[in-house]
């Protein structure tokens, strides 16, 4: 299965897909020393985003979140790739300064997404972006 999107940060990434039906708060919601989601009540609570292809609607919360993505990237704990349903400033700036391949404007159904746990390959170039799911 191939999912197309709009390019944000160019690059290639492969890894296990981690899908969140809910927005993610990077500042306060993700532990910068482990890459673990620590927001109570979040559907992905206690899951690790490091090395995953993170597929989520968009981020919420403080714009310090961009620096959290940078911190994770510099510790090798960032997602391998980011796919968002709609663009938001915190994630875009964080992905650029953390050099994390990213695409956005993905048209997928939030509820019926059997992506979790599957392998994904993300390729983002200036001309286009897609995620292949195996």
């Amino acid at each position: 299965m191939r999912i197309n999107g709009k390019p944000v940060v160019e690059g290639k990434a492969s890894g296990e897909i981690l899908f969140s039906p809910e927005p993610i708060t990077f500042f306060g919601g993700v532990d910068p020393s482990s890459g673990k989601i620590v927001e109570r009540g979040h559907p992905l609570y206690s899951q690790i985003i490091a090395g995953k292809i993170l597929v989520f609607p968009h981020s919420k919360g403080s714009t310090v979140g961009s620096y959290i993505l940078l911190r994770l990237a510099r510790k090798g704990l960032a997602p391998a790739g980011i796919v968002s349903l709609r663009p938001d400033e915190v994630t875009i700036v964080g992905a650029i300064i953390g050099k994390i391949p990213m695409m956005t404007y993905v048209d997928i159904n939030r509820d019926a997404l059997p992506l979790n746990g599957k392998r994904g390959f993300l390729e983002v170039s200036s001309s286009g972006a897609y995620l292949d799911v195996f």
Partner: protein
Amino acid sequence: MYLDKIEEKMLDGEFGEAVSLAMKTVVKMGEVFSAERLVKIKHAHVSGISYENIGDEGLSFLEEIASLGGRFSVPTTVNPGAMDTEKWREMGITPEVFEKQGRILRAFMRMGAKITLTCTPYLYEQIGFGDHLAWSESNAVLYANSIIGARTNRDGGPLALMEAIVGRAPLSGLHLDENRRPTLTIDFSISEQFIFDNYLFSVAGLIAGRIAGNRVPYVIGLRRLNGDVENLKLFLAAVGASGGTGLVLIEGVSPEKVDDIPSERVEVDARMLKEEMEKFNEDGEGIIVLGCPHLGLDEVQEIVEWFGKRGRAKRKIYLYTSRDVARMYEDKRKKLEELNIYMFADTCMVVSNLFAYGSRSVITDSGKAAFYLSSKGYNVSLVPRKIILERIAVSD
């Protein structure tokens, strides 16, 4: 997106790596949000400078940008950080954290920022109607757009930093006329008298922000706030805490002309205001914290004069303000402490670790501070300043 020749050179690295990274970020934001081109900005205000938030990685990122030649191409100011840079020892800050915070500020200085460390740049900077800005810090964004009629999106700290380096922002969002038109009316007419009789501007702001969400509202019933900087600050800061909007058009106050009053209308009555007050109705115990947003000079004067006449306050009062204002009270520190007043600059009750040097229970007049402190687990009483001064501060 259209880029002029200079902008293309910036992107291609002719002005160095830092400018290129900054331009790449700004252009990408513009492309994703369908801006036709960039717009030159007059001033930038950058948040996200506290070491406690951005950590070692944020610190090294800023030092790298400065070393790579990143320089602000427009006047740039900075938001408060986690400590008073002079009284940090009294706030439970370790020398290690203080040193790291110092390195962040030195990186900002190398890049050319004015180290103002206040969330109220609109009280000090030369900002005018129609000016394009790149501001972060929601209360400042709301004040600049709604009261001055300047134009800025509600940028995040890292984006405002990049825009300050390239001197440009994507021409999108609140930079454009079509996005500054109100789409919703919030009508306080039936509760106007109740609000003004009881000084409920913070409470009204929390409600207005929640109703507005990310939309631009037209607010009716608060025209008497025209020229009342103190209460406009409190109202807008509260809007920014509970809502995502960067512009509120207030009838009789905002300088922008509104041609069509939105027909979608939400009325706010006294019952809604009372319900909101109940959320922050602790027992009224604890220390008094004032200055979210930072107090202006006249506000500090008024508070200090009040207790100068009435005598020592019965509870500790913490005032948060800019270093420019605090400096004027430097030699009066002893006198203030005799009145039970303690003044801090460069930080505030929300971004510093108040529990470490103050209390877990607070009384404040700020809806924004009440919103964030209660979400951090503090016991908060939200009380108008006039009542704090006339009743709470003078009783046991």
